[in-house]
């Protein structure tokens, strides 16, 4: 009986590599490894030979040479004498900037349209499905171009603001909307402004503390504290008080028409706005669908049960439907965020200086180092994508249904 479970020993035959399931997987993996090695060797040797024939090499030292070109929208110090790697950093920051802005507004658009698509107002429902269908079914590149061209054509040029009876005027005397971008006042930080900012941050923390206390009180004693207006008071009053006590340390640098352009203030360039708006409105249509699907995925029984408990419609949404819907909405939302980041590479079509336009565009053109630039470009996007997925996965796990 003991021999029953013992496999036959010492009789390994070559055919067992194919027919014996214990060894077969090894055979397959060995074949796969060989094929992979052959492919890498084939491509690699071709690359080396081609480069040798051309007398080229793969080197990254061009990155420290002066870039020689200027960039209009930069978040860090940069001029034409800065190195190529610095231009790449400028590009990276610009990519992250537009991706972040577009993620925020796309979520707003998406939630708005998604909820309105379920509205019981027929006209609004139809209008929102029209929006969703039209934006989902036309390529984002075409949308970026259309929106950019609309901006260029419809917005006034800065020269329209000139003269005694200008064709265009600044909004509230503070904001200028031109086809070169939007000029907004920039804050000027005087001495003591740090205290104001610190107060503001402290009030935000204070709001959270107050809400926590209100919840605790509700659970412990059943007493319901109002949260709406006290939050607003905490947010505004201390900061305003400190602002005036410190003698108004924060001023505004209002943009002013001087020379060819508006000067002063912060300029948000037209390419940035066009790309931002196009990405958010395009992706918003997708998010709207996710939101709608998420809300519809919560079974009717949940809403009815909540209503039967006597919850008001607002609370039904907040306490019962949304927490469950979010679980369905979040994973596709993450991939939409990733899509925004990747689609921001289309900045190249409107001349926004993102990483594809600096490192993968002008730097590549000027140095001719195509292989190096494209590799670095892919490395950057890969890092961003993997980071976002990792962060979002952690969040995802934390809201996952904890089944017992």
């Amino acid at each position: 009986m003991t021999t029953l479970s013992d496999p036959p020993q010492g009789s390994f035959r070559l055919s067992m590599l194919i027919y014996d399931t214990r060894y077969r997987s090894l055979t397959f993996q060995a074949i796969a490894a060989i094929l992979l090695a052959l492919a890498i060797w084939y491509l690699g040797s071709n690359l080396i030979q081609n480069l040798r024939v051309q007398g080229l090499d793969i080197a990254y030292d061009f990155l420290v040479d002066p870039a020689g070109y200027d960039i209009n929208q930069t978040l860090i110090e940069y001029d034409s004498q800065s190195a190529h790697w610095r231009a790449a950093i400028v590009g990276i920051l610009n990519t992250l900037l537009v991706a972040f802005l577009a993620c925020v507004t796309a979520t707003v658009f998406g939630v708005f349209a998604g909820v309105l698509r379920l509205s019981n107002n027929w006209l609004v429902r139809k209008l929102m499905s029209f929006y969703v269908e039209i934006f989902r079914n036309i390529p984002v590149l075409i949308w970026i171009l259309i929106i950019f061209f609309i901006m260029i054509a419809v917005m006034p040029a800065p020269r329209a603001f000139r003269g005694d009876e200008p064709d265009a005027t600044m909004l509230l005397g503070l904001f200028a909307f031109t086809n070169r971008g939007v000029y907004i006042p920039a804050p000027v930080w005087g001495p003591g402004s740090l205290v104001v900012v610190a107060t503001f941050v402290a009030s935000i923390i204070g709001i959270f503390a107050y809400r926590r206390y209100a919840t605790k009180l509700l659970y412990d004693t059943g007493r319901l504290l109002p949260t709406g207006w006290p939050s607003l008071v905490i947010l505004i009053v201390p900061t305003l008080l400190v602002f005036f006590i410190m003698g108004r340390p924060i001023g505004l640098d209002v943009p002013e028409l001087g020379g060819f352009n508006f000067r002063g203030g912060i300029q948000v360039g037209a390419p940035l706005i066009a790309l931002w708006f196009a990405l958010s409105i395009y992706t918003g249509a997708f998010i709207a669908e996710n939101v709608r699907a998420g809300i519809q995925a919560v079974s009717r029984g949940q809403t009815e049960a909540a209503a039967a408990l006597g919850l008001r419609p607002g609370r039904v949404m907040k306490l019962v439907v949304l927490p469950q819907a979010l679980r369905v909405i979040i994973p596709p939302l993450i991939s939409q965020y990733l899509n925004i980041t990747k689609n921001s590479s289309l900045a190249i079509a409107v001349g926004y200086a993102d990483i594809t336009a600096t490192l993968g565009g002008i730097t590549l053109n000027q140095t001719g180092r195509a292989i190096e630039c494209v590799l670095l470009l892919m490395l950057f996007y890969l890092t961003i994508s993997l980071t976002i997925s990792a962060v979002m996965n952690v969040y995802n796990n934390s809201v996952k249904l904890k089944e017992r």
Partner: protein
Amino acid sequence: MSDTHAQSVAFVRDTEIPSAPPPYAATGPVKWMRENLFATHANGALTLIALYVIWYVLSGAVPWIFNGLWNTSSLSECREVLDGTVGACFSVLTERWNQLLFGFQYPEEYYWRPTLAFLLLGVAAAPVLFFDLPRKMLAFTAIYPFVAYWLIWGGTMLTPIVAFLGVAAGAMVYKRFVTGSFALGFFGGIFAAFVVWNLGGFLISDTASDTAMLGAVPSRDLGGFMLNMMLGVTCVSLSIPIGIALALGRQSSMPLIKWICVVFIEFIRGVPLITLLFVASVMLAYFFPPESSLDLFLRVVIMITMFSGAYIAEVIRGGLAALPKGQYEAADSLGLDYAQAMRLIILPQALKISIPGIVNIAVGLFKDTTLVSVIGMFDIVGMIRGPILASTEWNGVYWELLGFASVLFFIVCYGISQYSQWLERRLATDHR
């Protein structure tokens, strides 16, 4: 009895009162409007806002469209005729119609060929899309790729015939051996196809194309919306088998194969398509021998196929994960080996679940084919931004051209997504 009854009651109405019409406000369009447009104050406000938006858009667009001109020969002439009034210059569409659809290099006398290929595509795709059609039509689907290749690129008829024979030989060998061992059938089939292709390669002389029935067209002459359609159709159909293989590889118990698939999928999904197209346009040429005949179209097809393959793999992986574990165990308990279990039990169910996802990927991919304009190919967006807008006659016509491209894409993509929804309803087997 009826008599007594009649006498004991003073008055009996012997006809039914005609039912009164419902109150005016609770019927017809008014009721509908009250329920659907002005249910609450907020709702009413929303309706008014929506009406304003609609009016705003239409008041701009309608005169522009209906005042449009269709038969001027240049933008300046069009503006002259319009004489300051609002109106579109659709004449750019009529004048450059062929360029928008076929690119500027495709020989004019051959336009019927891609058109025919497009019509046949409908016939070939029908049995795949609609299960009710007779299965025999699939035979045409099988030969369609070769017919379409021959129609669009022209050249000697032998090339597609040899390619088809190779595939047919492979399929026959596969059928013959697959009952014994899947691996034998699969690899044997590939081997047979290779043998036929290599032997057939000797049959085709270099000059065969010169005397061919259909004149040869090099692939760099393809362009316009035709190029978008070709890239979309080719890449989606090629990427489905790749996606299946990758998804199975990612689920595999063999660490090396799993590792290769995971790295590949995550890499492709982590980078934008545009960087992959840069690879196709500026890097890929370095990885092949200098004289290899890998033209830009082929390189782009390779890259887009890899791209959509990785995305489809993730959709199919979702489908595989959604299958109850019992299905796998049932297959095992029947004594099926891996290949049989996958072929007969797992994949048919997993693919059914994945179809809506795959269609979504296909729509996204089709839209993404416009990105090839960035690397200097003349698809419809490339044609618009390149030759047409650069020409002296039509410099400055943006809305008409981009609007036309949008309409084309909308028709195709909306059609596909409506199909996907129909399919979803059709395949829904649960009861809700």
